[in-house]
């Protein structure tokens, strides 16, 4: 059944109307964009982690990612679209959900039947979003400025320097640590939840959930480790 569903997605053009207008369609879109971001996060983590071992390899990969036309002009726009789509859809759903209960309860015991993380995805998401603002300010805008505005000469060895320089500032490191804490919370619920949203709930779900939870803890901790590593190194 599930295989047939995804085979159909591949062969037919996506019915964009029902995918963005019905509750289930939106939910699936939310989950697919979330899963896409998880894949991106894994890739981003791998590259960052290399900086811990080898300055040269990190520079090489960064240079490749920053100058390969496929990455720059195809994958990067898809990623930016994915992020924007994900958080806008998140806000749209949040507004729709708030409208579904006009009069609030005087007493509502949310913790009796659902986890804190699952009830506060919009807040963990909002923290991650503001982190993305900082992150763009730190790396993406300077990068774009360097390459496309001032059109400075190519320098394949500048990336490691630039990055470690940023992590010298302890305030920035603290903000990174807090943000990745919230990303962990976001993924703690979101990653496993996205499988349920796209209709996967079967005998593998227990293991998927274990994997998703391990991922949501290990990857953000890894990012935190990298930030601390470069900070301590720069002292």
């Amino acid at each position, binding site marked *: 059944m599930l295989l047939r569903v995804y085979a159909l997605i591949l062969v037919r053009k996506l019915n964009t109307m029902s995918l963005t207008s019905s509750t289930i369609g939106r939910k699936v879109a939310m989950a697919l964009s979330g899963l896409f971001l998880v894949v991106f996060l894994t890739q981003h983590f791998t590259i960052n982690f290399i900086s811990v071992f080898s300055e040269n390899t990190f520079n090489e990969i960064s240079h490749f990612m920053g100058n390969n036309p496929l990455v720059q002009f195809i994958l990067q726009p898809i990623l930016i679209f994915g992020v924007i789509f994900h958080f806008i859809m998140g806000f749209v759903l949040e507004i729709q959900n708030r409208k579904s209960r006009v009069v609030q309860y005087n*007493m509502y015991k949310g913790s009796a039947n659902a986890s804190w993380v*699952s009830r506060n995805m919009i807040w963990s998401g909002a923290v991650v979003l503001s982190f993305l603002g900082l992150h763009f300010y730190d790396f993406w805008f300077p990068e774009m400025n360097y390459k496309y505005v001032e059109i400075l000469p190519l320098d394949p060895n500048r990336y490691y320097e630039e990055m470690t320089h940023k992590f010298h500032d302890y305030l920035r490191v603290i903000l990174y640590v807090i943000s990745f804490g919230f990303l962990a919370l976001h993924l703690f619920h979101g990653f496993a939840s996205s499988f349920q949203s796209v209709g996967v709930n079967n005998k593998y779900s227990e293991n998927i959930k274990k994997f998703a939870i391990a991922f949501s803890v290990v990857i953000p901790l890894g990012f935190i480790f990298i930030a601390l590593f470069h900070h301590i190194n720069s002292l």
Partner: protein
Amino acid sequence: MNLTLKVWRQANAEAKGRMETYPIADVSPDMSFLEMMDVLNEQLMGQGIDPIAFDHDCREGICGMCSMFINGEAHGPDRLVTTCQLHMRKFNDGDTITIEPFRAKAFPVIKDLTVDRSSFDRVQQAGGFVSVNTSGNTQDANSIPIDKHDADKAFDAAACIGCGACVATCKNASAMLFVSAKVSQYALLPQGKVEATDRVMNMVKQMDEEGFGNCTNTGACEVECPKGISLENIARMNREYLYASLKG
């Protein structure tokens, strides 16, 4: 037991409601919650106060009529029970109990604790049935072999009594557990598969039109459902819906 009850009072759908406080004495721990409400109403009538309107019918956990949001939870603190199956022994002497109607845009208050759940009926009417030809040549259901596993799952889904606790509990007032139980109950059986595509499309469309919220997989519905309807059904509905909308 002596208790303090804080109850939502609202004269009619248009009136502005508010919480009222009523003390009640000598409540037996063996009473059901609804019996306690009956005693309270007798007491109120004795004082010339309008009795509290609340829904109930079977009083044995099968009709789904009794609603009430008790101390912040649908059907109160107990699990796998309706309000009529909730006993006063779950509370302690001296407790203050907050009693509110089920709240959702799609469940407007009629009076006090009674809400209009006809939105569920309209979702059901949109596709929660099998149109069989009963002209005399219908195949005997018992002659159609059905996988035991599927039959069990369909039966579990069919246990939904349409009480609305899932909606009342959900932070998004989403009706997905209810609708998915109704979709699954048919989707798993050969008789229901014939109309599966239209059913899921129409029921979800009606669900959205009624103004229920969107599922965010918090799982609160599954915990509060008196019939233990599983989230597995929501995943099944999502699959069915995806398949149906792509098939067009």
